[in-house]
């Protein structure tokens, strides 16, 4: 089958036009649903969303935040989203902070991004108050919750709304520049190894509209996301791309309640990362096993993999009477990205009538580059390029060009220059395009460890910590598969101990001491970054001419 025309989706040039446009077009339809800690549901319509963004925009303007950098530090919430839309609507710059980082790293992120205002959730109130006291450049702190002695979200929205009622028409008249900087995303890694990706309003809005132009999302369709908003995939494709179609989006900001909220909301579509699908896949097999159909399913999958080249959903009759309550009863479509998904999982879900659509993106491309389509997909492929961008392969590397490609890395002109070749962005991913135009990934040129949560870690960051151990002379950090499940990656380190400092000691003594030191490092690292395996190396690492460790030749 040949590719077919893209679906029709509205495009807005600026974020304020986006907010005004969706608010007007879908007015009283439900836009966002959230469940609180106790499972109480709160739903906001498109009109309410627009009104709250307008109110907050007016209040932020009166605080003098026009053109300033505003960091948002908090888990996913409706308030987080309104803050993002309001800051971008007034032409200011949003800096979403990864809350899975330590306080020290968050502090560095705030400083490196030149944030002059911090918007925070309760867990970060103490940190933000301390930062404001310490750094004069941080002029404002704003709480997303109500009970803090500083300006808070509700009060600001109410104040701005009151201004609007009195005749302040700035939200209806303001114009912003679509090509100006809108958001700074931090890429994988932190401190010295992280990069700050600058995206314009146009970058993210082109991507917002192009994703549903490739993957059909209906007006009113119930969509669920638990992806963090501080990642481009979470914010742009799982939120903005859904709102532009008028769908009904349930957002979750807490892994603890992810599956509960999904069961309560009963989505038709779920946007996620491979690790969550691994868990759902286990549950799927458990249900099949309980129904006594394991053998039949295994036989079916064996047969099917020979016959089916298309990733289309089809359900064998012996599964039709089984009640698959993986996420309520309405789930028909899952979009997966962030890391590569095992083909077997796609087949298993197809068998029970759920289509998995896999895509590929990179923050520097706002992020979506290619995605499989509802009616046209291929196993093992990351799909066809989306509408606005061109993709080509050069020396096995995937290169991208188009309006989705970033403005550059913040304050890093040299890095920016190195990232491009004749106007094409070099993704650092290796791949090929088949004769039907489908894109395939074969590996990475850049040294990143990619987890099945979609999170990425730069080995250099972890190496920096390990090199701080007195007995370590050289080390190399890499991703190692646990062997428990395909794609389950953990951090491993190969250490060359300092021969002088460890003279006369046995390998066992050296390894034990280094492991103890690594335990101390692990105490300050988030779970996914913790060093899981330690091995000793007897000789120095092979080096390149620039004295860097040759990563793949050890």
């Amino acid at each position: 089958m040949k590719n077919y025309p893209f679906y029709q989706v509205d495009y807005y040039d600026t974020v304020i036009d986006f907010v005004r446009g969706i608010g007007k077009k879908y007015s009283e339809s439900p836009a966002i649903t959230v469940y609180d800690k106790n499972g109480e549901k709160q739903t906001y319509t498109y009109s309410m969303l627009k009104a709250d963004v307008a109110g907050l925009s007016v209040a932020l303007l009166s605080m003098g935040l026009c053109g300033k950098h505003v960091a948002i530090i908090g888990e996913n919430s409706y308030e987080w989203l309104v803050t993002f839309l309001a800051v971008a609507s007034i032409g200011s710059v949003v800096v979403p902070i990864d809350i899975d980082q330590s306080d020290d790293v968050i502090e560095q992120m705030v400083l490196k991004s030149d944030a002059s205002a911090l918007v925070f959730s309760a867990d970060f109130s103490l940190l933000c108050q301390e930062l404001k006291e310490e750094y004069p450049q941080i002029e404002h702190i704003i709480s997303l919750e109500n009970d803090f002695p500083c300006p808070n979200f509700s009060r600001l929205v109410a104040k701005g709304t009151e201004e609007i009622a009195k005749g302040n028409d700035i939200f209806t008249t303001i114009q912003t520049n679509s090509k100006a900087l809108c958001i700074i995303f931090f890429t994988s890694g932190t401190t010295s190894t992280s990069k700050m990706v600058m995206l314009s309003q146009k970058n993210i809005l082109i991507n917002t509209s192009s994703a549903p132009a490739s993957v059909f999302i209906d007006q009113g369709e119930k969509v669920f996301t638990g992806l963090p908003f501080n990642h481009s995939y979470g914010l742009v494709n799982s939120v903005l791309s859904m709102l532009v179609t008028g769908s009904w989006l349930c957002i979750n900001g807490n892994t603890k309640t992810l599956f509960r909220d999904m069961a309560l909301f009963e989505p038709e579509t779920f946007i996620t990362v491979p690790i969550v699908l691994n868990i759902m896949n286990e549950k799927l097999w458990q249900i099949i096993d309980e129904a006594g159909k394991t053998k039949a399913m295994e036989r079916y999958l064996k047969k099917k993999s020979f016959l089916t080249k298309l990733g289309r959903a089809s359900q064998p009759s012996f599964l039709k009477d089984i009640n698959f309550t993986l996420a309520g009863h309405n789930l028909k479509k899952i979009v997966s990205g962030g890391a590569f998904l095992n083909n077997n999982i796609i087949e298993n879900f197809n068998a029970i009538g759920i289509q998995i659509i896999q895509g590929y993106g990179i923050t520097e491309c706002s992020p979506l580059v290619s995605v499989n389509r509802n009616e046209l997909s291929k196993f093992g492929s990351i799909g066809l390029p989306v509408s606005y961008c061109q993709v080509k392969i050069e020396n096995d590397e995937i290169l991208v060009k188009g309006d989705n490609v970033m403005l550059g890395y913040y304050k890093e002109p040299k890095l920016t220059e190195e990232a491009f070749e004749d106007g094409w962005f070099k993704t650092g991913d290796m791949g090929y395009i088949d004769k039907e135009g489908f894109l395939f990934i074969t590996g990475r040129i850049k040294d990143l460890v990619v987890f099945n949560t979609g999170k990425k870690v730069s080995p250099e960051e972890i190496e920096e910590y390990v090199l701080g151990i007195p007995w370590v002379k050289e080390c190399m950090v890499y991703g190692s598969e646990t062997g428990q499940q395909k794609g389950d990656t953990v951090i491993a380190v190969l250490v060359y101990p300092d021969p002088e400092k460890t003279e006369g000691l046995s390998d066992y003594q050296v390894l034990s001491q280094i492991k103890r030191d690594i335990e101390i490092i692990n105490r300050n690292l988030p779970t996914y970054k913790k060093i899981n395996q330690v091995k000793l190396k007897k000789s120095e690492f092979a080096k390149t001419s620039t004295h860097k460790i040759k990563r793949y030749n050890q």
Partner: protein
Amino acid sequence: MLEIIKEILKEVIGVSYVSLETDFIKDLHLNSFDVVNIICALEIRFNIEIPTRDIWHINTVNDLIEYLTEVKKIAL
């Protein structure tokens, strides 16, 4: 306390052979969802709230027991 932790780990992740020194990451190879499931089970069992960020500082079963008894003041 060790017995309770063993019971919870068996229920949540199906592992029962743990000691005070067992490391959640290095020995049990838990992923972030396993960790969250253990937190949820502990919250229900002790009727407490455990912020996800607190978990970073807990590597071993012993660390967890110290956290529950000293930070969360759970007396047994």
